[in-house]
């Protein structure tokens, strides 16, 4: 039993290390990029941002260690379905409220709300196209 634990520990820590490294690149790049942008280092901010994105991709795709498996994909699918459901409800209810409220003069929705609703419409369109591609691809 002791031998089993000794052989399994390095592999587990390696898997976690790679995942943490990937997240560190991603979140670190975004966080440091935001910090630099707030200090008016705009070009450097974008460079750090992209180093984070590319670094995360390199760690993700560059290792032979299994970082994400079928269960992670199943969780992704369920989270995506939940996201689309919430988005649909927000779009259906929000668009109706804004349309009716504007017509009746009860609501004067700021441009940000209209932008958000158009954003939801864009997500719905992309979902529809993705669905068709997945459904009918050869």
């Amino acid at each position: 039993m002791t031998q089993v634990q000794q052989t399994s520990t390095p592999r587990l820590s390696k898997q976690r290390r790679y995942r943490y490294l990937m997240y560190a690149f991603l979140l670190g790049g975004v966080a440091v990029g935001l910090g630099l942008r707030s200090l008016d280092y705009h070009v450097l901010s974008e460079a750090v941002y992209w180093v984070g994105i590319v670094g995360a991709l390199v760690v993700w795709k560059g290792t032979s260690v299994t970082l994400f498996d079928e269960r992670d994909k199943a969780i992704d699918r369920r989270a995506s379905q939940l996201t689309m459901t919430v988005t649909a409800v927000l779009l259906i209810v929000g668009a109706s409220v804004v349309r009716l409220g504007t017509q009746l003069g009860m609501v004067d929705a700021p441009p940000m709300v209209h932008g958000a609703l158009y954003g939801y419409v864009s997500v719905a369109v992309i979902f529809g196209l993705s669905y068709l591609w997945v459904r009918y691809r050869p």
Partner: protein
Amino acid sequence: MKNAVREHREDANLSQGELAEAVGVTRQTINAIERERYDPSLELAFKLAAHFECRVEDLFDPELDADSTA
């Protein structure tokens, strides 16, 4: 889904991490299967059965009632 993955793994004196590596998934997935919080794909179920040299039905019990199997 009820399963006997933990029993087979312990009989084989394997850790969750070693079994995960053998069938190409993460340790967390093996843990979730053993706790019956995740039902594996057919592919993974067959890989597990092949690893333990048993049938899929020996590892997983779908608990089908009599009507659904008729």
